[in-house]
């Protein structure tokens, strides 16, 4: 434990993006005496998916517009039945309380003339989208509340592994400073992981490492830390794949433009999907269109009135991904005249958008004692930003209760020394492989072997390649603390790649549209696979997969509704069939 900086808290929240700040604030509110630390690899002021704000709530369950039961039903169907309804329902029931909390803190949502929330219908069945045309202030609002609640904040620390006591319960977290490379051991009675999606798994079609859909700080660190602590991960084969602006790789924002008359179109300017809400089935139709003679796919706005286009530009070019206007200008794309070319994203893990995450129950507890998780990395399907806030809230409160009466566990010096040696090796080598090169190759293999359509033999070869990259990790050379961060991320991405391959091989059926389309098992097989597929590190240290029954439904789904998301293609927009 040479040179390790040791500190002590009651609760450490790792990741200060969306779910993390909420968890820290709510833990403090529950018990103001707690010493709560919010740790981030970036700077909490501007970190995570919402660093520049957000265009809207994708899943608001607001009385008068939707009910928790209806929402639970919609997500169950959109996710092909494989959900723990208790977890989705817990979100839905608290969704409105979270909105009211954010509203009281000063986050602005769109309202109609009567002062009611201006909810829009984007999903297939219900209405859950609430625009935030002035959504650029979310992080500022959160930061103010963090200060008010007296949450301690440490920025620029990359968490790398959790500490566990003799009983396996979480006893802290380790990491290093990405500017000074100082090693930190932070003791705690519980940890909340809120490290976002695994956003650097696939390589974007542009080939640019950081041109990802997700904020690239989220390399999958949370997934890897949870895995190595023995936590169960759920349905990882249900990849995140999104329809995006080609090359720019940001959302085209059919949710923003849809209610104003914009839509996703094929090259003839025709609508081919009934509903722009992102689901595996929607991505399936999108992919079909890209592959077929009607591609590529576009966002169509050129039929809208000047006034509407100006509104759209104001929203899309100032919030969320504000460099979008510059991108369009550079290519001479004008919404008035041109459709915006779209493509599909690289693969990733994200429960915020699909269903791949660290398993949690409706209390945000993982399967490891003292470890909580919330946000994109926690497996509550389609949870998005509001789900991240809501589960952050659950995690903070429940962790605060769990901590009561517990004391700090002794630190195991051997665990710390092992981790220090592992993390610092690239800095100590005199020469070797550049992290960016290894990352490029690793992520290209992810594309080559794991991107749907998934093929068994290809995924098996992928596993061999990922094994070889494990050897390459032993040759990484970092020339600075900054590059050491990138080296640590490569190891995280490699772990996620192996998880993605093994989870995909385990489920020998197709499900969730494009997300888990297996060419050699092309049908959905409810008889054998109407279940969760979990993955964990077993006692011998091997990556292992197993089935878990789907929990009994709270909200029953009748057989007619069950297939609602299978009927997304617009009648008459059939694919051309070869003669």
């Amino acid at each position: 434990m040479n040179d390790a900086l040791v500190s002590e808290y009651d609760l450490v929240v790792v990741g200060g993006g969306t779910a993390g700040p909420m968890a820290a604030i709510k833990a403090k509110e529950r018990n103001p005496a707690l010493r709560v630390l919010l740790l981030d690899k970036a700077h909490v002021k501007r970190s995570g998916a919402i660093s520049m704000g957000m265009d809207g709530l994708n899943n608001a369950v607001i009385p008068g517009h939707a009910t928790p039961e209806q929402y639970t039903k919609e997500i169950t169907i959109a996710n092909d039945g494989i959900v723990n309804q208790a977890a989705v329902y817990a979100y839905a029931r608290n969704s409105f309380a979270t909105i009211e909390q954010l509203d009281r803190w000063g986050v602005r949502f769109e309202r109609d003339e009567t002062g009611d929330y201006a909810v829009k219908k984007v999903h297939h069945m219900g209405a859950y989208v609430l625009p935030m045309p002035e959504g650029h202030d979310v992080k500022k609002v959160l930061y103010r509340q963090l200060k008010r609640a007296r949450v301690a904040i440490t920025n620029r620390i990359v968490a790398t592994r959790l500490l566990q006591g003799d009983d396996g319960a979480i006893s802290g977290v380790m990491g290093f400073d990405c500017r000074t490379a100082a090693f930190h051991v932070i003791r705690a009675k519980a940890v909340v992981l809120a490290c976002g999606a695994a956003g650097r798994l696939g390589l974007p079609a542009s080939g640019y490492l950081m041109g990802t859909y997700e904020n690239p700080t989220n390399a999958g660190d949370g997934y890897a830390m949870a895995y190595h602590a023995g936590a169960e991960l759920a349905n990882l084969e249900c990849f995140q794949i999104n329809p995006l602006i080609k090359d720019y790789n940001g959302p085209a924002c059919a949710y923003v433009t849809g209610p104003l008359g914009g839509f996703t179109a094929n090259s003839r300017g025709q609508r081919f999907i009934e509903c722009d809400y992102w689901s595996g089935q929607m991505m399936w139709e999108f992919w079909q269109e890209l592959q077929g003679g009607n591609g590529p796919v576009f966002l169509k706005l050129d039929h809208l009135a000047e006034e509407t286009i100006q509104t759209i530009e104001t929203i899309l070019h100032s919030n969320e991904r504000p460099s979008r206007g510059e991108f369009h200008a550079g290519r001479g794309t004008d919404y008035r005249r041109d459709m915006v070319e779209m493509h599909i994203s690289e693969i990733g893990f994200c429960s915020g958008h699909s269903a791949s995450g660290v398993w949690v129950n409706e209390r945000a507890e993982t399967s490891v004692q003292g470890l909580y998780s919330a946000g994109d990395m926690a497996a509550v399907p389609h949870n998005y930003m509001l789900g991240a806030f809501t589960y952050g809230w659950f995690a903070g409160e429940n962790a605060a209760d769990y901590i009561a009466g517990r004391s700090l566990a002794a630190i195991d010096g051997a665990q710390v020394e092992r981790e220090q040696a592992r993390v610092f090796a690239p800095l100590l080598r005199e020469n070797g492989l550049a992290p960016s090169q290894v990352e490029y190759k690793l992520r290209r293999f992810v594309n080559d072997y794991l991107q749907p359509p998934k093929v068994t033999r290809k995924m098996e070869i992928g596993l061999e390649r990922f094994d070889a990259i494990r050897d390459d990790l032993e040759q990484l050379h970092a020339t600075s603390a900054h590059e050491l961060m990138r080296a640590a991320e490569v190891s995280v991405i490699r772990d996620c790649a192996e998880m993605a391959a093994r989870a995909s091989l385990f489920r020998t059926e197709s499900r969730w549209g494009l997300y888990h389309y297996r060419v050699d098992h092309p049908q959905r097989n409810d008889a054998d696979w109407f279940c969760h597929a979990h993955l964990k590190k077993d006692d011998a240290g091997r990556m292992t997969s197993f089935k878990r029954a789907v929990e009994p439904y709270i909200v029953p789904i009748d057989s007619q509704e069950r297939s609602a998301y299978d009927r997304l293609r617009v009648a008459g927009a059939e694919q051309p069939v070869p003669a």
Partner: protein
Amino acid sequence: MTFTFRETTQRSAAPVTVDHDKCIADKGCTVCVDVCPLDLLAIDPDTGKAYMKFDECWYCMPCAKDCPTGAVRVEIPYLLR
């Protein structure tokens, strides 16, 4: 035989540039350096101005938005332009 291991670098044009006339880093400002989620910016000790040290930009723009003097320009990285 004495093969010697060599590392080489790959050049790239930084998509984020700073207007030296406007940057007040020499008066103690470090805002853009503080907020960049990927930690790509630094103050050049020679010029006393901010600059992009690593080309790993997500073109997300907190650096430009939060700069008190409007000195930061974010262009789309060349590979995506």
